[in-house]
């Protein structure tokens, strides 16, 4: 089981790398530098000569290769999970990961063939984040600490706060993806003011979406700060909550800084991509925190054999925990 967990972590890390490669494709405007799909200029993707990786092809083709690799890794992850994982919902999550990565590949191909229609490209970006969330969840729920169980926590407010924060972060990513794919990244070229004002003096679709992303950033910053403050204040001894809450707060501060730099650098590709990758990390961290909170507050704690992962349906006490953890 420990190897499955390590492998799931590898798939999640590879997915983050894939998101970074995808970010570079969009940031450099290389999305159509390889006009055909699934082939690359007529070559089978994995046999396309390196000497021909020039200009924008470097970004697009690298993205495709990493995507192919992640797809392959996900097939193994799904089969592995299906065969060794006793929890049905985790097995289904493995299948969901496989379905998501296949759909993601098809959306990627479709957006190339259809010449980057915003709806398909935004869908591709949105599903990328969902797929990343699935791989992170798999890595989390197959971890020894998750399987070993956790002490229950009484805080009815906390699941609501964390779930709302994660949902808000994902919505903010969707707005960001929309802004990116309709070319509205510099629709408001000034920061922090909007053309010298607090509100846009003129409204177009591009300005509206860009402004919504800025408003969303303020809301996410507020939600994350509230969540982190709540955990710091009420659950300081809970290391499994304190750590992701602190990381989440630091990541969201970095994200706001990167967002400002994206505008001030006029969409410099590396800064732009860093903003995308960091956004994915914010979402993943918020998700991990939410899942841990839900596990500890809403579910009756159970004892699971760390070796076989079988539930024993015995409420877990501190004493039991010490025994399980040895």
């Amino acid at each position, binding site marked *: 089981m420990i190897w499955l967990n390590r492998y799931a972590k590898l798939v999640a890390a590879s997915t983050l790398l894939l998101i970074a490669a995808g970010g570079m494709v969009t940031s450099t405007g*290389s999305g159509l530098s390889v*006009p055909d799909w699934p082939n690359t200029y007529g070559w089978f993707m994995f046999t396309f000569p390196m000497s021909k990786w020039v200009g924008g092809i470097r970004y697009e083709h690298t993205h495709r290769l990493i995507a192919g690799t992640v797809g392959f890794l996900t097939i193994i992850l799904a089969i592995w999970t299906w065969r060794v994982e006793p929890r049905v919902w985790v097995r289904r999550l493995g299948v969901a990961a496989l379905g998501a990565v*296949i759909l993601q590949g098809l959306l990627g191909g*479709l957006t190339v063939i259809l010449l980057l229609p915003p709806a398909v490209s935004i869908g591709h970006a949105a599903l990328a984040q969902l797929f990343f969330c699935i791989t992170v969840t798999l890595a989390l729920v197959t971890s020894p600490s998750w399987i070993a169980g956790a002490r229950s926590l009484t805080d009815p407010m906390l699941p609501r706060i964390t779930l709302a924060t994660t949902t808000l972060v994902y919505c903010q990513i969707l707005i960001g993806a929309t802004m990116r794919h309709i070319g509205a990244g510099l629709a408001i070229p000034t920061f922090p003011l909007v053309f010298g004002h607090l509100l846009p003096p003129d409204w177009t679709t591009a300005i509206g979406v860009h402004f919504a992303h800025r408003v969303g950033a303020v809301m996410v910053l507020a939600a994350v700060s509230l969540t982190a403050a709540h955990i710091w204040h009420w659950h300081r001894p809970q290391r499994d909550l304190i750590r992701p809450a602190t990381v989440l707060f630091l990541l969201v501060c970095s994200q706001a800084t990167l967002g400002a730099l994206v505008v001030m650098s006029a969409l410099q590709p590396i800064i732009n991509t860093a903003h995308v990758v960091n956004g994915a990390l914010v979402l993943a961290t918020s998700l991990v925190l939410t899942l841990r909170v839900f596990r500890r507050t809403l579910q009756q704690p159970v004892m699971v054999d760390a070796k076989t992962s079988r539930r024993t349906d015995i409420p877990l006490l501190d004493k039991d925990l010490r025994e399980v953890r040895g």
Partner: protein
Amino acid sequence: MYLNQLRPFLTVSLMALAVACGGPTEKGGQAPAAPPANARRVDQSKAGNVTGHVTIEGTVPRNPPIQIDGDPYCRQQNPNGATAENFVVDGAGLENVFVYVKDGLGDYWFDVPTEPVKLDQHACRYQPHVLGVRTGQKLAISNSDDTLHNVHAVAAANREWNKGQSLKNIVDEKVFTKPEVMVRFKCDVHNWMQAFVGVLDHPYFAVTRHGGKFELKDLPAGTYTVEAWHEKLGSQTQTVTLGEKESKELNFMFKSAAASSN
């Protein structure tokens, strides 16, 4: 038993295969339509000409340098670096301006030339940078470079398309079916490469060359709106009335200050 367990994987994979095999196909366009029986044609013996030149007033903006680091072949072809082709000026004459009759031709019928218009990719540039083509006429796009290019026509009225040219001397022929000024061509591999193609359903267009000069030949008598289009300076229109066998001069002047706002 294992087959049952693998059923979800098989279902998803088959669905994926079905979608992947159903992609759209690319077509070059339609053949030009045949003229109607009572087609009205221009009487060449009574036609006139409009000539003129396009100038730029003020300090000509500098063409920004372009980064050619991404492709060794392109760097080799441009050893001293390169700049964008936004402003090509000879004296005060502004080149690469597309001048055409925008309105006033009525219902004349014009045969479509059988000769294709040529657009080449040479030294990682489109040559020419600005050109015109008739609806229904073939546009032959060639790759003289020993590197890959993709030819991406960002059309609005016509169908947008994107075609890879991975081999040297490869030629693709494309046809536009609707008038459109201008269709931007770009190479997504080499993001500095751009060309602009004016697509018209009549032959009265020209691109300014040598000192910004242009000529619209064999125009029938009438009153016309003539437009001059520049990729950075926008467009200007003027009206000209031409009698039978008459020649008139029509000059356009762009102000360089406008460049900063474009």
